[in-house]
């Protein structure tokens, strides 16, 4: 039983974390919100007048905003599709009896531990470079014209790189979920003559549904913030072909020094991420009750 004294002590122990996180949340957030209503550019010093919704208006009506939104959607959607489908297949495969499972699993999950700047540069130079990259060499070896990935299919190339990084994450989580499946249920259905497909469809997939939802939600949070991979490969180009929302805000705020505009973009990014976060929080909250 918790006494009054221990309650007070507990509060005191939680306080530093709460105060820090509260500060980390409220101070920069309210600054972003405040700046987003000012005309505030670091290279044009002035008195930073209040301009209402002007920054939002210019940010949203700029053609690069529409491009960035479409790219963000394609990037997140494309990577989610590849990693969820691929991750499910990988997890099903790794769950089968085999030799050297530990080593194979280590090989599959390794890309997740490669830092984003390294994977961006390695794929860009060693694989996708049309002259010296492996894909270029292979294409030439087979008599094809090598593809210049980052000028012909820039967004697809980035989707590929990011999928390579996140496929292990999806695999690992789905594999964990799959291993918690009661094997007796599977055996019973097998004895009753259920085919492999119906076993997958009616037993495994419903069991995985929750894990898949978690993968989708968590990855979406991270994928909305993809930055380093774009910075080291394409710098958002050619044109705005690979500029996502995060990168666009980075360009406005730290390259064009437009604090007001960058902040307006920041507010939009926060709202977007929150829509996803609400669903994720609900799932986690439910789990906490159990």
């Amino acid at each position, binding site marked *: 039983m918790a006494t009054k004294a221990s*309650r007070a002590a507990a509060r005191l122990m939680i306080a530093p974390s709460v105060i820090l996180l509260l500060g980390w949340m409220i101070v920069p957030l309210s600054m972003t919100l405040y700046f987003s209503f000012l005309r505030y550019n670091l290279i044009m010093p002035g008195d930073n007048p209040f301009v209402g919704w002007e920054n939002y208006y210019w940010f949203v009506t700029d053609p690069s905003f529409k491009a960035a939104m479409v790219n963000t959607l394609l990037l997140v959607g494309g990577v989610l599709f590849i990693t969820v489908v691929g991750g499910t297949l990988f997890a099903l495969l790794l769950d089968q009896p085999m030799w050297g499972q530990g080593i194979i699993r280590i090989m599959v999950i390794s890309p997740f531990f490669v830092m984003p700047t390294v994977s961006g540069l390695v794929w860009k130079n060693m694989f996708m470079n049309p002259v010296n990259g492996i894909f270029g060499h292979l294409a030439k070896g087979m008599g094809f014209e090598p593809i210049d990935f980052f000028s012909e299919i820039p967004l697809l190339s980035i989707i590929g790189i990011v999928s390579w990084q996140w496929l292990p994450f999806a695999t690992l989580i789905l594999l964990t979920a799959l291993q918690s499946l009661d094997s007796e249920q599977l055996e019973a259905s097998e004895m009753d003559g259920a085919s492999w497909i119906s076993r997958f469809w009616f037993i495994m997939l419903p069991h995985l549904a929750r894990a898949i939802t978690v993968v989708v939600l968590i990855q979406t949070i991270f994928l909305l913030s993809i930055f380093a991979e774009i910075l080291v490969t394409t710098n958002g180009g050619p044109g705005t072909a690979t500029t996502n929302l995060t990168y666009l805000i980075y360009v406005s705020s730290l390259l064009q020094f437009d604090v007001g505009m960058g902040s307006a973009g920041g507010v939009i990014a926060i709202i977007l991420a929150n829509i996803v976060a609400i669903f994720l929080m609900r799932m986690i909250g439910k789990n906490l009750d159990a």
Partner: protein
Amino acid sequence: MARAVNTSRKSLNTAIAATLGLIMFFPVLWILILSFKSEIDAVRSPWQVLTAGWTMESYGAVQERSDYFKHFMNSVTISLGSTFLGLLIAIPAAWAMAFVPAKRTKDVLMWMLSTKMLPPVGVLVPIYLIFRNLGILDTRSGLVIVLMLMNLPIIIWMLYTYFREIPGEILEAARMDGASLREEVLYVLTPMAIPGMASTVLLNIILSWNEAFWTLNLTAAQAAPLTAFIASYSSPEGLFYAKLSAASIMAIAPILIMGWFSQKQLVRGLTFGAVK
């Protein structure tokens, strides 16, 4: 599984899985190979690369050209610093929430988690300006603070789920036997909490080592950890494949090895207990 598995099916599984595993791992394997080749051989066709002679020269060259060791130490300082500072703040909080739960504990936990959902780019401008005005742009202590705050919710959550698994009866038994609070924490709780804390530390070192938004935006030449240092290779050094490979291998090797040991904790830490 109690089912008998026939050998041919097992061989087939192994063959398919090993092939896919190799494909996923290939980029890492390939830069490992390239890092031991000379600059001229590294840009040849794959077959010529494999048959070319081996050399260690790139590893030396990377250090000489750009003081690699400094950036490596920056990474070490930043990731260890932010993890242990976070642990220091998180342990009391997680301990209190796990063992003295109150009505609002769940809300507090959920709220802490919600701070993790904040996209970093949403607060890029204010953090950048605060850092500039405080004069901590491009310092290691600045990054330690930001990464600690980024990961604090994960640390608290992981510790909380581990602490909750410690049965309360054991603590009660210790108390009945006349253990003081200090003894209880020191001799009963700590030994049982150490594996959980170790996992938390491991995952958080990995996360902060690879963090590439704040490290890229808040550092320049001085405090740049390896993420930012490697980014400077995007041009024109990116054309030096052997050196880029050597720098990359040194940057990812420690964390790759740690990652292999933390697969289970990764699932727990990154799904906040939603998948077990």
